[in-house]
Structures are given as C-alpha cells and as structure tokens.
C-alpha cells in the first residue's frame, strides 16, 4: 500500500513538472498593452476603450456624497459623476454608452489589467501610484481638512503644534493617513479604518478626537452627516500643507489618457469644471487655515 501511495506522489510531481513546462512564451518584462479594440467614437480609432462603442467608468462602492449623490453615478448628480459624464460626452459617449462599474479604493491602484477605462474616487496623484497606474491631468485640487466633534481636544487649533496630542483617525491607504503621520506627527499613532464610514463611526463613539479627510468630504460630513461636528481647519499648500490633485485613474500607459486630457482641457477652459465645483461642492472660503511648522 505504501509503495502505491509513493508511486502516486511521484506521478503527481511529474505532472507538476510537465505543467510548468507548458507556456514557453518569452518572459519579456513588457508592461501590459491594453487591448486596442476599435473604438466606436467620433475620434476614430486612437482612443480605444475596453469595450467597443462603450466607455466603462468605475467608482467606489458605495460612492459618497458630495462626489456622487445617492450612490447613483448614472444620474450625473455629484461632482465626480458630473465631471465623468462631461468627459464622456467630450469623447463622444452619452446615455447608454456610458457604463458604470464599482471597485474598491485599493483594487484600482494595483498592478495589472483593469475592468474599466478609467476610475474616479478622489484618487490623489502620487509618484508611487504613478509607477503602477496612469493618471490624467488633475480635475480637482483639494486640501486635507480636520473634522472633530464640538468640545474635542482638536477644537480651536490654529497650528500643527496644537494638534500633536490629538487622537486621529483616517481611512487606510489614503493620503490623509500619510498626512497625519508625516506632517502632523501626533504623539499617539492614528487609527486606520477600511473606509470613511469606520472613521466616522469612531469619531461618533469618541474613540478618536478628530479625523482627516479631504476638504469637500469634511464639509459634507460636518454639515450633513454628523451632528455636532465641525471642520476645525484645512491645510493648503500655501501654509506648508499638501494639496492633493485628484486625477482619473487608468491602467498603466493606456492611450486613452491623452484623449481624456484633451477633454479635460476643453472642460477646464470652458469653465465647466469650476461650474461643477460651484454646484456640488460647498464653498471652501470660510474654513480657517491651520499653519504647518
């Protein structure tokens, strides 16, 4: 009986070796070339999409306000929904030809082939990410901002030194979390959550004193979502903070980027991007600035 088992094991090992033998294609370290299907657009052929005649746009699951209202990007309500549909129209896709899919935040910034033409979920353009995926030109610039409940330790902070003893929370894998650890550098390590919903729950439960999110999200949270919360301040680039440029995210070296950049330039020059910001994002003017350093 033992001999039979070892024979089976040897055969299995042999099969493994043979299977590994198959697929003798060249192992050239070329990056993925996107499937260049014929595009059914008015640009004709040099703006390929993954599906003929349709533009596949991805966003988060769920997609939050004020970027997408009611988690329904097809309606075009919400800043990002509006921008995406405007870009699609510039490229020649409208109505039924715009397909929305959902991905998690992390899913899209991994190497490999994508299930969408571009993804927008407030992705900040960073050099590390740009090595793995491609970004369009920025469609919005946002500052980091701090949200806290009334009466918390973060209230009334005017500089980063006032925030050093505050317990922070932020969504994991975002530039907000990096901002806390690199710029604010509090004494207590920040808590990280899967998504902003976790950070908001922790804020309400008093487990964190303050959370860091981008400014439009901060304004929405304090105005609509959490009662008794307020935006303590923002960190613009002029005060030594960082300004996050949001860009549309593409598979690496996707030729569609050039087409989309052209569309964005048209929208920017025509004032439409500003108009969308006015319509969907709260007025940032009244938020106090927190000095860095």
């Amino acid at each position, binding site marked *: 009986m033992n001999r039979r088992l070892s024979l089976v*094991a*040897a055969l299995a*090992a042999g099969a*493994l*070796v043979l299977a*590994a*033998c198959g*697929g*003798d*294609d*060249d*192992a*050239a*370290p070329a990056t993925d070339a996107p499937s260049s299907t014929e595009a059914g657009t008015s640009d004709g052929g040099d703006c390929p999409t993954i599906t003929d005649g349709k533009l596949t746009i991805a966003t988060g699951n769920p997609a939050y306000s004020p970027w997408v209202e009611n988690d329904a990007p097809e309606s075009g309500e919400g800043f990002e929904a509006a921008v995406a549909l405007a870009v699609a129209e510039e490229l020649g896709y409208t109505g039924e030809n715009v397909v929305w899919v959902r991905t998690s935040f*992390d899913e899209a*910034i*991994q*190497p*490999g082939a994508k299930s969408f033409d571009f993804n927008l979920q407030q992705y900040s353009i960073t050099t*590390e*990410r740009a*090595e*793995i*995926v491609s970004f369009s030109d920025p469609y919005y610039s946002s500052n980091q901002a701090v949200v806290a409940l009334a009466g918390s330790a973060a209230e009334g902070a005017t500089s980063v030194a006032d925030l050093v003893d505050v317990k922070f*929370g932020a969504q*994991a*894998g*975002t530039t907000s*979390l*990096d901002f806390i650890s690199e710029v604010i550098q509090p004494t207590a*390590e*920040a*808590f*990280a*959550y*899967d998504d902003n919903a*976790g950070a908001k*729950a*922790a804020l*309400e*439960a*008093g*487990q*964190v004193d303050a959370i860091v999110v981008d400014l439009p999200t901060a304004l929405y949270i304090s105005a609509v979502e959490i009662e008794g919360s307020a935006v303590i301040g923002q960190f613009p680039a002029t005060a030594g903070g960082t300004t996050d440029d949001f860009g549309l995210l593409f598979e690496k070296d996707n030729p569609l980027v050039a087409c989309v950049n052209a569309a964005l330039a048209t929208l920017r020059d025509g004032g439409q991007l500003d108009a969308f910001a006015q319509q969907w994002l709260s007025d940032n003017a009244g938020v106090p600035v927190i000095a860095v350093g």
Partner: protein
Amino acid sequence: MSDLPGTGASGPTRRQLYERRQRRRSIVVAVASTLIVVGAIVVLVPKTPGWYRVRRSFFNGETFAETFPRLAEAFVLDLKIFAWCAPCILVWGLLLALARGVRTPALFPLRLFAAAYTDVFRGVPVILTILLVGFGIPGLGLDRPWNSPYLWGSVALVLAYSAYVAEVFRAGIESVHESQRAAARSLGLSSGQTMRHVVLPQAVRRVVPPLMNDMVSLQKDVALISLIGPIEVLRQAGIDKSKFANFTPYLGAALLFILLTIPETRIVDHLQNRQRRRTGATAIR
C-alpha cells in the same frame, strides 16, 4: 554473522542489517525526489510569461526590506492582544463547557444559556461581532478610556472564540468514559470533585491538539481588530501595499505569522509526546 538476537557483542543481526539498508535507501529516494520537485519549481516557474511582473509585485526585495521593520513593530500589537485574549478565552470557554454539562435540574437555565450562547456566537461571523461590540458599545456613550477599541475588540474576540473553545472542551469532557465518573463517585467524591480531579485533567489533555488549532486560528483573527482602528500587522501591510502599490508587505506579514506558529506547534507537539511516553502509550508501534 550471528543468528542469535540480543547478543550485541557479536554485531548486528541480519534483520538489523536489512532494516538499516532499507532506511538508507528510503532516505536516498526521499532526497532525490525532493530535489527533483524543488528543482523543477525553481527552474521552470521563472520561465512562465508573467513571472517578472509577479516577482516584482509579490517578491520585491527592496519593498520587503523597507516595510519589514514597521511590520514587525505592528506585529507586537497582535502578540499583545493574543496574549491577553487567549487565557480569557480558555477560561470562559471552559466555564461554558461546564455550564453546558450540569445535570442538576435546578441549574437548567444555566445549561440553556450556555447552549444558546454557543449557537449564537458560532453562527455570527466574527467580523460582525467585532463591529457590533467594538463600535456599538462605545457608541452608547462611554468615555475614554472605557471606550477603547483595544478593550472592546478583545471582548468581542473573547465572546466569539469562547463559543468554539467551549465546544472543544465539551467534546473532551464527554469523551472521558462514564466509568471514570462512576468510579470516582463510588469512592465518595462529590460531583464537583469528580469533575475537578478526575474528568477535567483527562479531558483537557485529550483536546490539546484541537485547542492548538483554535489558538493558531485566533492569532490570525486578531487581525480583525484592525476594522475598528488599531493598526496591527495586516493593516500595516495593507497601508504599505497601497503606498508602494506592491503586495510584498503581505509576504512579510505571512512570514511573521509563520515564525510564531511553527515553534508554538512544535513545542506543544513535544509536550504531547512527552506526555504519551510517560503513560507508555508509545510502547506499541
């Protein structure tokens, strides 16, 4: 060459020589077979078309070196949480198992409670328990430090895992033959004394391997505490993954878990073997 067994002075017997030859041959075959399989993997896998990309994404030396120190630091949190949860789970699980086994009619509600408890907490996914207890209870209005996610996350893990451990203990207790109880009672020991001095020692020794299983599983589920805030090793690996757009940090985290688990299980195996040798259970091959 002597045919007389046991006369060590005249050299090994024919049987011993034969066994020695067989052993040597098995070792040679085992080594050769291992070399072939490992060699095949090492030589042929890099020839696959996607190898370069996979290696850059999953086995990147630079990223590994850069992220490993922080991962090790975060792992200490996992160890701490495991260190204070594991004893609580064992104690609470044992109490539940005993509660489930009470036979006096007056204590029936206790038995009911234990049965309902194990059903509910084995049925509900641990993630839900952690979110409900970790966010929900502090949200009722507790002040710091009583609303700490470390505290309530650990409570949630204890609640969830005790249900599994209780069932393991119950299996151990029920596997001790009824005659042991009968003998103990006939010697004049009370029910409680029987349990404490006769049944439990045997039961607990029997269920050490499945308990080990649950403990190892607990080590990995400690990572779920990252859902409610604390940055432990898997969360740190996830943050690094997003920052470097590379999966290698997860490899570092896996290495840390394995480095913990392997010595642990070998030590327990050794203790078990020592126990078996003492009771003469290894006399027959």
